[in-house]
């Protein structure tokens, strides 16, 4: 199954702040059929209560919540911000890419996290994602 969906990707989005950016990435999960709206609320709750731990790498935030919080299928969304945003992380701010993930089953979200980590952890692919201009080019970079 191809996991990358065009409706789950938006390039050069204007977001007001971290919460807005997370909500946009979460709404794309809902639009693509990966999650119920309450999953987005759970992701936001996690960020507001626990902090900017979701900024896993320089410039990259990976919002997620537990599968039982309304995940419908394993998937992810990708938002490239027009302007980098401060999430409050000491070392990895500002954030330019927000990649929200969902997983189903006991390990689904870990598998998705590892898949996404494999792409975003690759410095060349990360750089390409910051530069591409359209979905077609993204589909050449994100191939799972």
């Amino acid at each position, binding site marked *: 199954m191809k996991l990358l969906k065009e409706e789950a990707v938006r390039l050069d989005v204007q977001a007001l702040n971290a919460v807005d950016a997370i909500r946009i990435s979460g709404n794309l999960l809902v639009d693509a059929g990966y999650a119920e709206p309450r999953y987005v609320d759970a992701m936001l709750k996690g960020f507001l209560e626990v902090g900017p731990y979701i900024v896993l790498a320089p410039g990259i935030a990976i919002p*997620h919540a537990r599968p039982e919080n309304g995940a419908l299928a394993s998937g992810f969304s990708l938002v490239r911000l027009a302007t980098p945003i401060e999430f409050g992380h000491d070392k990895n701010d500002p954030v330019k890419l927000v990649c929200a993930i969902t997983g189903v089953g006991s390990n689904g979200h870990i598998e998705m996290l590892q898949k996404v*980590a494999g792409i975003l952890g690759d410095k060349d692919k990360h750089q390409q994602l910051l530069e591409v201009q359209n979905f077609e080019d993204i589909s050449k970079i994100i191939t799972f």
Partner: protein
Amino acid sequence: MYVLSVCGMGFGTSLMLLMEVQSIAKEHGYTVDGEATDLGSAKGKSCDLIIASSEIAAELSDEAAPVIAIDNLLDKEEIKEKVLPMIKKLAQEG
């Protein structure tokens, strides 16, 4: 040896980190047991080593076990460079 991997909520990033650490250990002939947990549950838990993202690690400085802080959780090289020497050291100490 028993490793605690810690993240904000204890079910996503910390599990990925633990699996990565176990895979690095295995590659080099070491067996690492451990669990992934959230910050609150990590405090006071008995273990040989704690591994966490840098902003979480800052809050674990009072723990008895050594704490390794990872800045970039997607960078396998950083994880390996920081964690492997400690695994070797702990293995030698038995």
